């Protein structure tokens, strides 16, 4: 991946993550409905509270990606988060969009994967 492609993908993913976080804050109950009943049953908090936590997480990951700070960790967490979304939200008509986002986040994480010399953070 060249430098320009990296920045385009990073900024694009960042905008998506932050905006999703904002939209969750706008309608937490509506977004909580996406959580499958089996997943809601194993939560320690109410689905609405869990989805609010997700919104904070999305915004933080998005901001880190946007300003290119701890980008490896942000993209890795974004990938893990999207995998969990695919697991708890089930398969529906918009699943393909999450798969696209997951591929983008994974591409960033793989691109920035720590080398043998040390962690990306320490470079």
């Amino acid at each position, binding site marked *: 991946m060249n430098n320009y492609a990296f920045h385009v993908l990073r*900024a694009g993913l960042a905008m998506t993550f932050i*905006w999703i976080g904002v939209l969750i804050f*706008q309608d937490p109950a509506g977004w909580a409905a996406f959580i499958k009943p089996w997943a809601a049953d194993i939560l320690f908090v109410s689905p609405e509270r869990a989805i609010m936590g997700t919104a904070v997480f999305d915004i933080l990951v998005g901001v880190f990606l*946007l300003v290119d700070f701890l980008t490896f960790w942000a993209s890795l967490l974004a990938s893990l988060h999207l995998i969990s979304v695919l697991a708890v939200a089930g398969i529906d008509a918009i699943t393909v969009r999450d798969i696209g986002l997951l591929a983008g986040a994974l591409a960033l994480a793989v691109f920035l994967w720590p080398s043998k010399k040390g962690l990306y953070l320490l470079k």
Partner: protein
Amino acid sequence: MTALSLLFTMAALGLSETAYLIKKRRAMEAPVCPVGEDCRAVLSSKYSRLFFVHNEIAGFVFYAVISAIASFLVIGLGSFEILNLILDVLVFAGSAVSIFFLYLQWKVIKAWCFWCVMSALTIFAMAIIILSVGFKLTP
């Protein structure tokens, strides 16, 4: 909603650009100029610091405030009228400052900086979005 999401996208683009320039200045590295070679001439000129801080820092704060206000309007936090007014004033003041910066590059510094022109275009796009909805950004 669509206008606000577009406005937010533009502000996030601006945040990303200015964060890149801040990072490069802190590392004392020259930013990459995707088009032309004059970025350094503009970014190291005496006009790179107009409001007592470097322009990219002022720009970062500007874009951060715009994105925050767009988010507040969507979530429904604060007074809709006041936030709308602040957003309109900020974007049109930003457009005026951008026109001034374009004039400086064209006539005074006589060099064009890709990132500065991109930032100006981003702010003009925001102004067009606001004009296209008649100054009413409804969530």
